[in-house]
């Protein structure tokens, strides 16, 4: 499979994520869209690592491992973000009984 298809795939997912973040008002859904973006990145990284494995990394497989480990760390961070993010969203819900991001717009101008 040519690399460009992977690129297109993950870019498409990425942009869907962005579009979702733009079109929705529910904080949780926006957050999920962001998770979608992160996943598209993961996919891309794995694809690249595989691509490099047939190229420069053929002699140094460690170079390809790098990308997969990077994905691992992204997952770690994503997990951490989720815990914090959901806590914040819960806090918001507690305060406003809503998760609509447009509901909170006291800070402006």
């Amino acid at each position, binding site marked *: 499979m040519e690399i460009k298809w992977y690129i297109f795939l993950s870019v498409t997912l990425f942009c869907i994520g962005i579009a979702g973040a733009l079109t929705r008002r529910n904080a949780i859904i926006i957050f999920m869209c962001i998770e979608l973006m992160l996943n598209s990145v993961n996919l891309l990284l794995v694809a690249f690592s595989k691509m490099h494995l047939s190229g420069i990394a053929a002699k140094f497989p460690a170079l390809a491992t790098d990308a997969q480990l990077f994905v691992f760390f992204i997952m770690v961070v994503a997990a951490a973000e989720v815990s914090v993010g959901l806590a914040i969203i819960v806090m918001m819900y507690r305060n406003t009984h809503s998760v609509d991001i*447009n509901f909170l717009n006291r800070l*402006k*101008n």
Partner: protein
Amino acid sequence: MNAIHLIYLVPLLPLIGFLVNGLGRKILSKRAVGVIGSAVILGSFIISLLIFFQVRQEDFTPQIISYFDFINVGTIHASFAFQVDQLSSLFLLIITGVGFLIHVYSASYMHEENATDLARYFSYLNLFVFSMLLLVLGANYIILFIGWEGVGLCSYLLIGYWFKNTSYNNAAKKAFVMNRIGDLGFLLGIFWMINTFGSVSFHDLFNPNNGIISILHETNSHRLIGITLLLFVGAIGKSAQIPLYTWLPDAMAGPTPVSALIHAATMVTAGIYMIARSNLMYTMAPSTMNVVAIIGLATAIFAATIALKQNDIKKVLAYSTVSQLGYMFLGLGVGAYTGAVFHVMTHAFFKALLFLGAGSVIHAMGGEQDLRKMGGLSKRMRITYITFFIGCLAISGIPPFAGFFSKDEILAVTFSKNPLLYIIGLGGALLTAFYMFRLLALAFMGKFRGTEDQLHHVHESPGAITFPLISLAFLSVVGGLVGIPEIYMQHGHRLGEFLSPVFAQSNAILATHEITHQTEWMLTGISTILIVLISVWAWNKNKNYQGETTAETGLDRVLEHKWYVDELYDAIIVKPLRSLSLFFNNVIERSGIDAIVNGIGKSIQYGSRQIRLLQSGQAGSYILMMVIGILILFIIQLFAN
């Protein structure tokens, strides 16, 4: 003893007088003030006299006494130096002599002032003499200019001496500003001179051996014309010629002795002095000479016509001064330098006499200056009357009084240049005779037309006033004798011979059309006869003036309003200038520049108000904005490069 080494004392003494009177005005008594004020001038006069005698000696060469560098930088090289030669020594005598008499006169005339004011008065007067002396002694144009401005300042201060009166102040201001206009021309002339000749010293420029002008050998070059014209602008201002003459009649607001000293005898002749000093330059610029002659003549006639209809005794004399100054410029313009200087001298005598006489009259009348309210004073003020009469004779040019010789000389040279100018000039002389005798008759003949109170008050003035009158009357009678024309007496023109070194180069250049003795006799005769006739006519016409008003013609009204020149100036200069200034202030400054500056501030605030709206407070729109930013950056990076 070489008196010339004492030359610094001549201006210094009046300066000391100024300082003493000025600083001690609270301490000194009235008497002390008068004495100090007069004594310093007397001192100067004596030294001037000593110098004069030294200058008269055969082997005298002009001397320059340099004290220190005044401005010696770049292209300007001017030291603080005095030049003593025939011309300056003559002027020294006139200034200190007449000046002394007027100081003496003032001491008495101003006795009603309190001590402080009197001290102020005398300090101004001394300062004036100092400046005037600086003017005539200066060895270069810059020192001359110092005096030139200095006398202007003193004139300003003295005209506005009675500072409570606003119109007096306005007159003073007017005098100063008009002088300033002339001074600008003068200054530009000096700048031009510095930049073309590299020197402003009379010696460098004019000395016969290697003077810059002398060896130039260029006639009527544009730079010479330019410089001389600009200098002449200065003279126009200072000597009250058309178009800058209107300040002089207004200047009569000052005390009468001031009018006599400054606005008749000395300061106003500074212009003539300056041109006589620069005679070589003018001679080599005949075009300027023509301008000078025409302006002089025009002023002479113009001012004389105005004088015909004036009723203020001092105003008449003022216009007469303007007119006489015009004659002097006419003389300069036609190349009669000696004649012009001669006329300066005689004019100083008789005009000072006339003013002081007028002062005596005013004094006696308790401040009244309107001729229509005088009359019949001849019986009560004998000395004043007689001396005034002599003055009239002298100014009208009736032989053998002083004015006759000087005016005649100017007119004779004018005739040799251009008979038409002569005829006009003669017309002016006739007008002079007319208005002077009208004045005389109105003031001294007929019935007294003042109030009872004034009548009671009228009496002859004290000695301190009559002494200068008599002295000046004497000088008015005999003053002309130093310049008796050749036709009457060989070597009769002592003054001409005395001054000849100063004008030698010019006279050599000027092709003098000698007129024959017969012509001269004839001219003199005709003019004398005409003048006498006019005088008698004016005398008779006015001696029984009763205060009745004859029907005024239009011309009368125009003359009475001085040809409406003041109004004209007001309309074309003063008012537009004021409107322009207001326009600058209100429109350009406030609504223009300031508005732009404030506008920048306002537009920043406006921008601030608008741009803050981007900050809508909604996370969604923030992300949208970010995405748009990313898009733009992407497009630039990936496609624009």
